[in-house]
Each structure stands twice: as C-alpha cells, then as structure tokens.
C-alpha cells in the first residue's frame, strides 16, 4: 500500500498577523510555522492505515522554497518513510499551478491513495486536491470525515449541510481530509532523531504562470465587544431587552 500525502507549511494561526508594507500580503517576519492542520490529520490517517495493514509506505510531498523542508521533516518524525520537496521560489496562490506541478510528480509514483488536507489554513481555498485528481484522471472524494480502505476499494463519509453521504470508490484515488477523523500524533523524540536519516529528495520545478494573484490583504474591522451587561440570572431581562430593541435579533 503506497500513500502520498501532500502537505503545506503554514504560519501558526494563533499569531497576530500584520500586513506587509505594500499591502499585498501577510508579513511573515517573526512568524512560527508548522504543517497545516488538516494536512496533519491526513498524515496521521495515512500512518494509521499502513500500521493497521502492517505494510505499506507513506510519502510526503510539499511544494515551495527550502523552508518547507521543516514541514516535511516533521512528517518524517511522525513516521513517514520519505519526503519529496518540489522546490520553487514561492508558493503561488494559484491552486491550478500548484496542482499541475503536483500531478506531474505524483503521476508515476504508483500511489494507491493520494491525500490532502481539505484546505490549507492560510489560503483556505480547498481546490488543490480536487484539481490534482482531475489532472491525474483519478477518482476523487473531498472533505471526508471517515475513511476506510480494503481490497482495492475505499469507503468515505462526507458531511453535508444537514446530513452526510457515504461513498464508495475504487483505488487508486485522491481523498481530501476534514475534521473529525484523527488527531496527529506528537513526533516522539526518537522520531525526531530518525527523521534526519530518512530520504528527503529536493527537486526544482517550474510553475506555470499564475492567473490568480493577490492584490491586497487587509485585516477585517475589529469587533467592538466587551460589554458585560450583568451577572447571573439577574442579567437575563436586560439581555432580552437589548436583543429586542438594540440588536433587533429577537
């Protein structure tokens, strides 16, 4: 069983973000980075799958400048067998450009399953997985909250508004991972040491010209909160009144 997981290195979302001087993007200076949340779940799912089967290999892939190797090494320290770094100057916002580069790399890998997080925490587009699947001509299920694989077939659950659907599909396939499926293991200290010795291949790739680009990034207006109207049950009548007359939501 060979599984590829595509991951992205993103800033820590607990940070207070600042905008660059040219107003175009988030200022990365001083930020701490890590593997994007959903990508971590995907890596965990992949590892659990191969552990349960008692065989198989998990490979992680990431596109971007040298710094993304940190996220690849984190995956290696979780137990992934090897890593592939597709080296570019920067990570484009254009998901089709990313998908094109990933598809070119993954096509000949002989993977039974290719996984992505449902979206990257910074770009929040959720398109690269589905686009990569299309380019590879592989069956695709997105935003799965449960996943099982047996006998060359997969079964997945997708949450919908007010319900869910259960889908079946043949392998090889591309799946993107949602919340609720697994929490990533902590890299053990031995895992961190072992990661250094695992193969990490870096290859430069050419990106197609981007056709989606940021022109401006802004912070949304701050909420003016902070009004405590009272303590305990005594405050309830005032709350009702304010919701009716001021907020007009009741």
């Amino acid at each position: 069983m060979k599984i590829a997981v595509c991951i992205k290195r993103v800033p820590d979302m607990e940070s207070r973000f600042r905008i660059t001087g040219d107003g175009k993007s988030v200022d990365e200076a001083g930020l701490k980075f890590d593997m994007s949340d959903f990508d971590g779940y995907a890596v965990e799912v992949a590892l659990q799958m191969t552990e349960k089967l008692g065989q198989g290999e998990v490979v992680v892939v990431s596109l971007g400048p040298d710094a993304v190797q940190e996220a690849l090494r984190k995956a290696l320290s979780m137990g992934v067998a090897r890593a592939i770094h597709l080296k570019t100057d920067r990570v484009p916002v254009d998901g089709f450009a990313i998908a094109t580069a990933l598809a070119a790399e993954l096509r000949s890998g002989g993977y039974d399953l290719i996984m992505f997080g449902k979206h990257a925490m910074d770009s929040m587009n959720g398109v690269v997985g589905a686009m990569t699947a299309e380019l590879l001509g592989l069956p695709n299920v997105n935003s799965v909250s449960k996943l099982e694989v047996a006998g060359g077939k997969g079964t997945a659950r997708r949450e919908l508004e007010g319900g869910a659907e259960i889908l079946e599909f043949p392998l090889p396939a591309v799946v993107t991972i949602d919340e609720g499926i697994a929490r990533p293991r902590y890299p053990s200290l031995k895992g961190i040491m072992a990661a250094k010795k695992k193969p990490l291949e870096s290859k430069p790739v050419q990106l197609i010209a981007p056709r989606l680009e940021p022109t401006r990034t802004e912070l949304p207006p701050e909420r003016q909160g902070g009004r405590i109207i009272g303590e305990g049950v005594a405050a309830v009548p005032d709350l009702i009144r304010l919701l009716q007359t001021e907020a007009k939501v009741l």
Partner: protein
Amino acid sequence: MLDFYNIDSLLSEEERAVRDSVRRFVDDNVLPVIGECYVEGRFPKEIVPGLAELGVFGANLPEEYGCAGLNNVAYGLIMQELERGDSGVRSFASVQGALVMYPIYAFGSEDQKRHYLPKMASGEIIGCFGLTEPDYGSNPAGMITMAREQPDGSWVLNGAKMWITNGSTAKVAIVWAKTNDDKDQRSIRGFIVPTSSKGFRAKDQKGKLSLRASDTSELVLEDVRVPADALLPKSGGLKSPLMCLTQARYGISWGALGAAMACFEEASSYAKTRIMFDRPIGGFQLQQLRLAEMLTEIVKGQLLCVQLGRLKDRGEFTPQQVSLAKRNNVSIATDIARETRRLLGANGILAEYAAMRHMANLESVYTYEGTHDVHTLILGQSVTGLNAFGA
C-alpha cells in the same frame, strides 16, 4: 511564549522540534490535571506511559540502549517544558533519567545496561535514587548506610534514606552505601536494589506543602540482601553519586526556567486582561516593573542554559558551571513565581492559577540537588580556592 532575544535562532530545528513535542504533551496531558493533582497530593502517574512513548526518559543516553540519543540542549529543553507543567513532573523525569539511568549507564556493567536501560526508557521499570539520609543531606559524605560484602559475594545493606522521589512506586532503587566503615567516604559504592527485596520498605512522606504532585518517600533497608551483580562495578567514592547529581542539576537549571516562563506567561496574560480602576493592571507602573524584571531574568537564564548545554555537548563543562546555572535559575524562578503570585492578587492563591503551586514547588527545588547555599560555596571555592564549607 515571548522569545524576546530570539533564543530560537540559537537552537537547531531538531532541538525546537523536541521542545515543541514535549510542550504539546504537557499542554494536553499535564496542565488539565495538575492543579487537582497538586491539591490532592498525588503524582499523575497516568502520564508515565505517554512520557515514555515520547522518549523522555534518559533522552540524552545512546540509542543502542533504547534511548532517544538527543544532545544535551535538547535534553535541557525537555526538562524546561516538563517543569513548565510542574516541578514534580520534571522531578520524576530527572530522577528516572539522570539519577537512575545515568548511573547505570556510567557505572554499570554491559549486562546491567542492556538489562535495565531499555526497560527504564520504556517506563516499564521506574527507579529512584537513594543518596540523602535523615541526618545527611547537604553532607552526603557523612552517610551511614552500610553495605557489607558476604562470603558468597552478595551484599547486605542496612540504613535509611529520605526525601526520595519515586521511592514508593519504584521497582528499583539505586542505593549508595559505604562498604568499609561509616567514616570512609571513598568506600561509597552504588547498588541496584529491587524494591521488592526482603527488608526493603518505602513509606510516603506525608504533610508536604511543596512538590505535592510528586511521590516523596523514606526508604528503610533492614538486612537487605542483593546478589553480587547488583553492585555498579565502576562506582567508587562520593564522586560517583555527585556525577549523577551534576547531570540532574544541569536539567534542573533548564527546568527552573520552565517554571519561570509558565509564571511569566500567566502574569503577562493576567496583567493585560485584569481590569481595575477602569484599565488593565498591566498599565500600572508597579506591575510593569514586575514584568520587566521577570523578562530580564528569564532571558539571562535562557542564555546561561544554552551556553551550558553547548559546553556539555563539547565535553567541556564543569560541575562548578552547573552550580552557577542551578543556583541562579532556581533563585530567579522562585522570585518570579512569588511576584506572579502577587501580581495575580487574590486570584493568585487559587490552584486554578499556576503561580502559587510553582512558588511552593520551587522552594523544594531551591533546597534539593544542592541547596542554594551549597552552590554559593562551590562557586566561592571555585573563585578563591578556599573551602568555606566549615568542615
């Protein structure tokens, strides 16, 4: 945590990854239960398997013995993160790693190493370190626990040890005893004593107001017989246990910083959100003075530790250097915990906040592993060449 001097840039990616893994573990497994454990007076032993799986025990010992094989800066960061949780939790790991696994590694036979170390790394065998006695704390050379060699090569041990972390839950105790007469400190040797041995008793010390989330016991050995292969063959003289203490003290220098950082974070966060006289208390000069002092001492302490760790990794460090770091970092940590307690006002006496628990714990850390005063004299002797210990 505010990294005011970008200490992260002095750490390798691995060292940061180790720190982050342990930090996450502590956040998820220690912080949610530790206040309660402290009040109840129990060590959260349910975290031991998780700690073992993470690879925390004997983390700086070699991979061939089932350990993580980390460098000493990474080891220090582990202690820092554990003590950010609680000094009692870090004490557990210090004892297991530096005071039980280390002596077996440094003074044990190959058989002993292969038999014990992997099982101690995996948490299957928990150990304790029996050096201190009821009347011999700062002066371990005066110990009166005796080990008499028998005609068949076995040993019979008699004596009592006190203030032993993990004592009542340990499967083995590394007991230090004199093998000649009770005045001869050169005859001190180390023994691996199974706590199930006939004549071995461990009793929890009750009534502690510090390190409450930690097992502290008295050990009594009454004609405890151990086979010849229980002796740590390369041990000899007071130097042996002191070498172990140097390892533990190194970890404690980092650990104390963890406690200081936990308190500083609590203080800063509280200062920014607690409103009094219509504004956050962090806007008042006296609170800013507290926070500025805390930050300054933490930064100094961090730089001390990183350099000490690098020296240790190069094989260049000395026990006197460790004394300076332990003495300084524990002292500033006790101040920071106390000042945090005060900044928190009335809330600061609640177990819901970490400050007073750290404050109480750090009093033990101030006293154990060489009291503050003992390290003062070690440094004094180092500077002047003159022994002021009074002996």
